[in-house]
C-alpha cells in the first residue's frame, strides 16, 4: 500500500513556475483591503463637502479656459520632460565617466541651471535674448519670426534646460551608482560602448533613479506656472485669473490642486509601473 503511493506519486517540479510574478508573498492579492475602503470613503466625504459647502457658481464661465489651461500645462510638461531627459542623459554620463572636456562644461551647465531661479532664466531668454531678435530686420523678415515673436518657444526652451540641469545631476549619480561588475561583464563580452550604455548602463541607472525622476517630473509640473510671466496661459494662470476676477480665495485653487493631483497621479502611476518592470530585491 505504502509502496503504491510512493510509486504513483507524481512529482511536479515546483520550480516550473517562474517566481518573479508573485515573488512577494507579503503582498496581498486583493486590491480592496478594509483600510483602503475607509480611505476612499474619507476622500469621497472630503470631495462631497467641498462641493456642498464652497462656492462654485463661477465655474461655468471659465470652463473653456480651464480646459485650455489644463491642456497647455500637460503638453508643456510632457514636451519639456521628454526633451529635458534626452539632454540629461549625456549630461549625466559626461559628468560620471566622460573626459574632462565634456565633464567640465556639463558640470558648469548643471550648476548654473540649478544655481539660478528658473524665473530669471525665463526672463533672460524671453526679454533678453528674445528682444534682441527684432532689432535685426533680416530676422524680423524671416520665416522664423512668427515663432520667435511668440512666447511658447522660449517657455519650452527654458523649462527643458531647467529639467535637463536638475536631471543631469540625478543621472550623474545614477550612472556612477551602477555596480562596476555589471559594466565589466558587458565589456568582457565585447559590447560596444554605445551598446553597453543602451543595454546595461542606462537601464540600470534609470531603474535606480526612477523614484527621484518621478519627483523631478512633479517638480517640473510645479514649475510650469512660471510660463505665465511670459504670457503663456496655463492652468495655474487660469486659476489666478479667476481669483483676481472674483476675489474668491480657495475654490479656484482647489480646482487647480485637483488638476495637478490628477496629473501627478498619472505621473506617479506610470513611474511605478516602470519601476515594477524589474523587481529589485530589498534588504
Amino acid at each position, binding site marked *: 500500500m505504502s509502496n503504491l503511493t510512493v510509486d504513483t506519486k507524481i512529482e511536479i517540479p515546483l520550480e516550473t513556475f*517562474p*517566481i518573479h510574478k508573485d515573488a512577494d508573498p507579503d503582498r496581498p492579492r486583493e486590491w480592496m483591503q478594509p483600510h483602503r475602503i475607509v480611505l476612499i470613503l474619507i476622500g469621497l466625504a472630503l470631495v462631497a463637502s467641498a462641493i456642498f459647502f464652497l462656492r462654485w457658481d463661477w465655474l461655468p464661465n471659465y470652463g473653456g479656459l480651464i480646459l485650455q489651461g489644463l491642456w497647455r500645462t500637460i503638453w508643456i510638461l510632457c514636451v519639456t520632460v521628454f526633451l529635458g531627459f534626452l539632454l540629461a542623459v549625456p549630461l549625466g554620463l559626461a559628468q560620471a565617466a566622460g573626459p574632462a572636456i565634456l565633464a567640465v562644461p556639463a558640470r558648469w551647465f548643471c550648476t548654473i541651471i540649478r544655481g539660478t531661479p528658473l524665473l530669471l532664466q525665463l526672463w533672460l531668454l524671453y526679454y533678453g535674448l528674445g528682444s534682441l531678435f527684432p532689432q535685426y530686420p533680416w530676422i524680423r523678415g524671416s520665416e522664423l519670426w512668427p515663432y520667435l515673436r511668440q512666447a511658447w518657444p522660449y517657455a519650452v526652451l527654458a523649462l527643458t534646460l531647467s529639467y535637463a540641469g536638475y536631471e543631469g545631476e540625478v543621472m550623474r549619480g545614477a550612472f556612477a551608482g551602477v555596480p562596476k561588475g555589471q559594466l*565589466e*561583464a558587458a565589456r*568582457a563580452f*565585447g*559590447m*560596444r560602448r554605445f*551598446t553597453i550604455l543602451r543595454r546595461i548602463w542606462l537601464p*540600470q541607472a534609470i531603474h535606480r533613479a526612477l523614484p527621484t525622476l518621478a519627483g523631478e517630473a512633479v517638480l517640473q509640473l510645479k514649475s510650469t506656472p512660471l510660463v505665465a510671466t511670459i504670457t503663456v496661459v496655463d492652468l495655474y494662470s487660469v486659476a489666478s485669473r479667476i481669483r483676481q476676477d472674483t476675489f474668491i480665495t480657495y475654490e479656484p485653487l482647489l480646482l487647480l490642486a485637483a488638476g495637478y493631483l490628477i496629473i501627478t497621479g498619472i505621473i506617479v502611476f506610470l513611474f511605478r509601473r516602470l519601476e515594477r518592470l524589474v523587481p529589485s530585491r530589498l534588504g
Partner: protein
Amino acid sequence: MTVSDAVLTDPLQQQSAEQAEAIHVWNLHKRFGSLEVLKGVSMTARDGDVVALIGGSGSGKSTFLRCINFLENPTSGVIRINGEDIEMVSDGVGGQYPANRRQIERIRSRLGMVFQNFNLWQHMTLLQNVIEVPVHVLGVKRDEAIAVGEQLLERVGLSAKRDVYPAYLSGGQQQRGAIARALAIQPRVMLFDEPTSALDPELVGEVLKVIADLAKEGRTMLLVTHEMKFAREVASHVMYLHNGIVEEEGPPEDLFGSPKSERLKQFIRTVS
C-alpha cells in the same frame, strides 16, 4: 613603449608563428598603486589547450585573467589573442592602455568569461542574460538565440529558472547562469574564474565534462581553480602562481606528481 619594440625581445615570438596560438602573454606586470600584483607572468595557450591556473588566495589569478581581456590595463607586457597583437599606448603616468578600442571589443566578443562573482546583469532574467550578447553583439537572430539559450539553460539544469531575475537565484544557480551566458557566445577562448566554487560535487562533474567537451572541439580554456582534482583531470597544462610570479608550470602529471618548488610541494601536501 609600443608593442612592436617589445615583440623584438620576445623569445616566444618565433615559434608562435607556426602554431595556432590562442593566447600569448609575455612578461605581464600589473600594479595597483604601490602593490605589484603581477611581476612578469608569461604564458602561451594553443587551440584546444586547457590551462589551469592555481595558487593561493590573493596571488593574482583573477587579476591575470582580467588583464587578458583588458578589464584591467596591464602596467606593462605583451598580450596576443588569436595571433593578433594588441597595441598599447602609454598614458604618461607609468601605465598603458589599448590603442584601439574597436580591436579590443572585437577580440572580447570572442572571449567568453565567467567571473568569480558571476556578475549576471541584474535587470534581466536569466534567459535574457544568456541571449544578450548573441543578439546585441554578435547579431544572432533573436529566435535562434533563444533556442540556443534554452538549450544551454537545460544543459546547466536551469530551464525552470529562465524567467527569474538573478537576485532570486541561489549561489550555484547564479554561477551556472554565468557559465551558460559565457557558453552562449560559442567563444574560441574561454576564461573561467573559479567556475565551480559554488557548485555541489555532482555539478562540478557536469561542468568538468562541459569543459572537456569544449576542449575537444578545439576551443581554448584558461581556468582559475581551487579544485586540484579538477586541474589534474581536465588541464593540459597547469600554472602555479605565487606572489605574482609563475612559481612552476607544466603538465599536470609532472606538477602534481613531482613538484619541484618548495612552495608548491607545501601547497599540494595540504590537498591530498
